[in-house]
């Protein structure tokens, strides 16, 4: 009895999580533009999606910004973590507090303040300002996930490498970096997803004619969201799903092997 209830509970959770996405995928094959009517099965939206320059440009912008900003934030965040390791307890906790605030801060506050900052500095709004903003709000997430790894770091191994004649850079990349890697990777992924689905900050800091997917979809509100967007969202979902399945199925998990 108990196990049946457990299963029902899990099934309900999964249903609520995935029913909206399921609906979206079904609608992406609907020949009729309205969600209220099933007009027959079609691949039309998928075809016109790849002919729609604006959507493709928005997709490219989104991915480019997500990739570049999370990469930059990962580098900056990791370096900051290593620097903080050498600091006094007090300065360290103050700094941690400062980096945590933007994360707790409402997006709209971050967005508007960044916009005002750019205006007062006279920076031209464009893809560059979006990128700067995304790097800014991504850094705390990287620090958050790299910091625990840095704390576990054994400084003696690094010193031992130096004693054995390794240069600082060599010692860092050969000894410290592999230990930090899992944290860095998860920080990178977190930053990537944060950047991918950010709307508000992008909305305030984007320049003319530059759109990411989220701002593009939002502007379609007045006339109704185009079915091409359903098709694109379905594709993104399927891609992410396959990636996750592949990662979890991969037989050689390097991290596990190392820790064993």
């Amino acid at each position, binding site marked *: 009895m108990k196990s049946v209830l457990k299963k029902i509970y899990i099934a309900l959770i999964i249903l609520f999580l995935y029913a909206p996405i399921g609906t979206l995928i079904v609608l992406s094959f609907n020949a*009729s*533009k*309205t*969600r*209220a*009517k099933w007009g027959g099965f079609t691949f039309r939206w998928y075809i016109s999606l790849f002919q729609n*320059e*604006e959507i493709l440009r928005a997709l490219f912008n989104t991915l480019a910004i997500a990739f570049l900003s999370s990469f*930059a934030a990962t580098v900056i965040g990791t*370096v900051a973590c290593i620097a903080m390791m050498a600091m006094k307890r007090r300065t360290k906790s103050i700094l941690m507090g400062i980096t945590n605030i933007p994360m707790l801060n409402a997006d709209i506050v971050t967005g508007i303040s960044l*916009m*005002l900052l*750019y*205006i007062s500095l006279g*920076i*031209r*709004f*464009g*893809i*560059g*300002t979006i*990128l*700067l903003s995304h790097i800014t709000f991504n850094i705390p997430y990287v620090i958050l996930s790299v910091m625990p790894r840095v704390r576990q770091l054994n400084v003696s191994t690094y010193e031992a490498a*130096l004693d054995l004649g390794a*240069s*600082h*850079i060599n010692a860092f990349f050969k000894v410290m970096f592999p230990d930090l890697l899992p944290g860095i990777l998860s920080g990178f992924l977190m930053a990537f997803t944060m950047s991918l689905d950010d709307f508000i900050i992008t*909305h305030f800091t984007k*320049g*003319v*004619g530059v*759109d990411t997917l989220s701002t*593009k979809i*939002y*502007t*379609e*509100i*007045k*006339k*109704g969201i*185009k079915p091409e967007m359903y098709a694109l969202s379905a594709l993104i979902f399927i891609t992410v799903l396959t990636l996750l399945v592949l990662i979890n199925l991969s037989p050689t998990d390097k991290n596990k092997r190392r820790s064993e």
Partner: protein
Amino acid sequence: MGNKRIYQLKKAMCALILLSVSALCGCGSTEKGVNGQVIVYNWGEYIDPETIRMFEEEYGIKVIYDEFETNESMYPKVESGAVAYDIACPSDYMISRMIQNGMLSELDYSKMPNVKKNIGAQYFEQSKGFDPDNKYAVPYCWGTVGILYNKTMVEEPITRWEQLWDETYADNILMQDSVRDAFMVAEKLNGNSMNTLDPEELEAAKDLLIEQKPLIQAYVVDQVRDKMIGGEAAIGVIYSGEAIYTQRENPDLVYVIPEEGTNVWIDSWVILKNAPNKENAEKFIDFMCREDIALMNFDYITYSTPNEAARELIEDEAIRNSEIAFPDLSQYDNMETYIYLGEEGDSLYNELWKEVKAY
């Protein structure tokens, strides 16, 4: 030796960061056409992208095109000056607000011959509600707010706002979830102006809306479209621009302009004060008023065009003579456009609307 190495590394990193920051700022600049550029701020999905390409080719002017989703989100972006837009396309009441705040620049119609030639005089007449001397706004798209009903679900044809208070349709009515549209219905039913600030008239409108509340299935925005097509409700308040599309999807639907009168909305091109490319902006607006271009945009957007010359070119006779898309405004004397009510007026309406919603 080691310390020196680290010092060098630090220097290199600083240089790298500085370099990437300056590179980032640099890529904000955009290429220009031979004859410069023009920056346009319009509603999303509110233009045929092909017309922009045609304009760029014919005039050698690069169009930088940006989109907004509501008048309210457009206003602060223009006001902040983060981007110096040349042209925007706000709705009536937002235009009156921008006029009041001195954000628009006066138009020189002699440089835009297509405007007066092609745009119907009645639309300029209607625009006087928010732009008293027709100095700032060139009508681009317009429509009415009316009732869409499903003829298989009602007992008699719907012709009046009053019927939205009929108990036979309890739980079958969809109202607009926006302050001005909701109060417009009640104020018109009471025979008052939809721009009233008279406390008694507003109180009466509020009472009416509260009285209607038990009959409402839902307060909705753009879901009216899909809900009516799906037959989920009998009666809905909707914009005329959606009427033709919904009828195509579900032939049982009928759109009417209520006898008590209703709101006529007009989205218009305006040139912003301090527009950096004013001449190009004039060329752009003039181009948009050319009949073939206006026709392309009408086909794409499907909202009524004020461009009489373009209307003549519509091939489908049923649409060209459609009473829904092109009602004769001169036949009605109770049509109004919204005007900006000032900050106090806005908050008064919002306060009353909250009372209705919370009741």
